[in-house]
């Protein structure tokens, strides 16, 4: 429903709802708290309440945290079936059908990929997915979000004019929430009714090797050069990033890589989203192979290495040491 038409008789704002997710430690994820903080800001602007809803297990301590971040009411649904997306869709949909929101926020997670669109369709609402930034335009009362298209080549700014407006939000769109431990809030238990639900059955985990893209199509590459130092470390870093291993021509000479893994004018031209060059000086021949890379990180001990001048981000130092620090920071 687009009520821009009757702007001057805009109805009272309903409330802002945030779907909270729990991390492996059983506490609300940092992203969930961030969203509650963001919802609080929106709610203060509109003059309405913030609801946090958690589906799954007992939140325990997190309830206090969510209230401190800005939730006025925390709704909890507890049921082992809620481990499954279809159950969460049903329960959440029922709650929101009974208490229609002004805005509904999800963290941009795999769970939200399953749930948010179905909720949106059920409520006849628009969805702004994977927003890297999101705000409420208070004069128009529409949600404005910015999201990546063409795998992040650029972004589109979109407005959601429906009520509710729904968004899935990436980390750092709102920034860390302001935690006020003096805030007061309520909790409410949600009834779980899964009758008439056509269930998707999870049979069990399975070992499956997804087809690996050829190097020229790899999205992430960690590449070794003569000064890489510790090739095992290179492989570790690659594994952690879900990247493919490659190398400059000299890595072939060192016996670390095969012919098919050589990047450069005498090997493959690659176009990854992320290329980490470890110990590669970066002459023309190698540079030719990465001319289409979206983001190049260079690690090299010599501060006059040519690659450091063209990399998007460079670290000068002992490559094995820097790689270990990187691996630590990424974990």
């Amino acid at each position, binding site marked *: 429903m687009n009520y821009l038409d009757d702007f001057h008789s805009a109805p009272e704002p309903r409330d802002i709802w945030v779907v909270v997710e729990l991390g492996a430690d059983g506490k609300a994820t940092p992203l969930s708290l961030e969203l509650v903080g963001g919802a609080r800001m929106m709610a203060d602007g509109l003059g309405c309440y913030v609801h946090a809803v958690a589906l799954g297990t007992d939140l325990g301590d997190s309830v206090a945290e969510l209230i401190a971040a800005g939730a006025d009411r925390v709704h909890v649904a507890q049921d082992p079936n809620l481990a499954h997306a279809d159950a969460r869709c049903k329960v959440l949909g029922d709650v929101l059908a009974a208490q229609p929101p002004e805005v509904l926020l999800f963290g941009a997670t795999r769970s939200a990929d399953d749930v948010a*669109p179905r909720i949106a369709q059920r409520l006849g*609402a*628009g969805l702004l997915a994977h927003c890297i930034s999101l705000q409420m335009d208070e004069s128009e009362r529409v949600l404005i979000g910015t999201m990546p298209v063409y795998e992040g080549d650029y972004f589109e700014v979109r407005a959601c004019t429906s009520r509710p407006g729904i968004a899935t939000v990436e980390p750092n769109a709102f920034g860390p929430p302001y935690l006020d431990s003096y805030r007061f809030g309520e909790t409410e238990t949600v009834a779980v009714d899964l009758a008439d639900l056509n269930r998707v059955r*999870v049979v069990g985990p399975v*070992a499956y090797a997804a087809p690996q*893209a050829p190097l020229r199509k790899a999205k992430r590459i960690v590449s070794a050069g003569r000064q890489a130092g510790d090739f095992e470390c290179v492989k570790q870093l690659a594994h952690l990033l879900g990247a493919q291993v490659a190398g400059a021509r000299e890595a072939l000479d060192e016996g670390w890589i095969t012919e098919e893994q050589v990047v450069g004018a005498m090997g493959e031209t690659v176009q990854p989203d992320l290329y980490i060059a470890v110990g590669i000086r970066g002459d023309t021949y190698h540079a030719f192979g990465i001319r289409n890379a979206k983001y190049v990180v260079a690690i090299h001990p010599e501060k006059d290495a040519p690659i450091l001048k063209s990399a*998007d981000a460079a670290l000068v130092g002992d490559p094995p040491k820097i790689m270990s620090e990187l691996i630590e920071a990424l974990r």
Partner: protein
Amino acid sequence: MRIVVAIKQVLDPRGFTVNRKAEKIFVNHEEYMINPADKSALEVALQIKDTVEAEIVVLCGGPERANEALRQAWAMGADRGIQLTDKLFAGADGLVAARLLAAAIRKLGGVEVALTGERALDTGAGEVGPRLAEALGWPHILAAHKVGLTDGAVKAIAKADRFVEVEAPRPAVVIVANGANQPRYAHAARVINSYQKWSPEVWNAADLGLTETDLAVAVVKRGLAFPAERQPGTVLSSAGELVGMLKRQRVI
């Protein structure tokens, strides 16, 4: 066994360049293609047809040029192609797209599985698949890599944080992961015939029984934004700083 594949025609990124400095997109060759994840979904359908008797019906909503995507799908081996074209469909968002496709699937009747790709390159939302399932009242399987049929159900290897085997009763919507397979090449004779001997069927809003209200969009495009200009030669001082930067710039 009637299987529907919903495909989308998107602008081929090889035909345009993004100029961050000018904050503009320069289209060098206006070329269109079948959205890659949808092509993988079509390949899943064709693989099912390789093993059991199935009728593959491909749906594509869009302007007149959508017929090219359907011809390509037919050339790859689909049995029927239906183009959903109407002035009222212009600017369709996820909400409307799901309604369109659901209406078409209901009109077709007898559909057991509806397949589509997990994300369109040009919207990046990944919403149409689950929305379609909701609109039809069917269960859905997300991020499917391998799909098979069992008695009255559809089985899939899907990726959550790791690979699991899931099973949904039919009819169901199966959303195929990007890169799940390598789509087959259309046979050259069929490519020629897709223009000389075949045409897609065309359905409009009236054919689908959809009114202007049904087709009112909820999301509109307001503008574009661009990643920060590249700063070659940026030297950082620590691994921690690098990780922060990569996260901030959404490289990881």
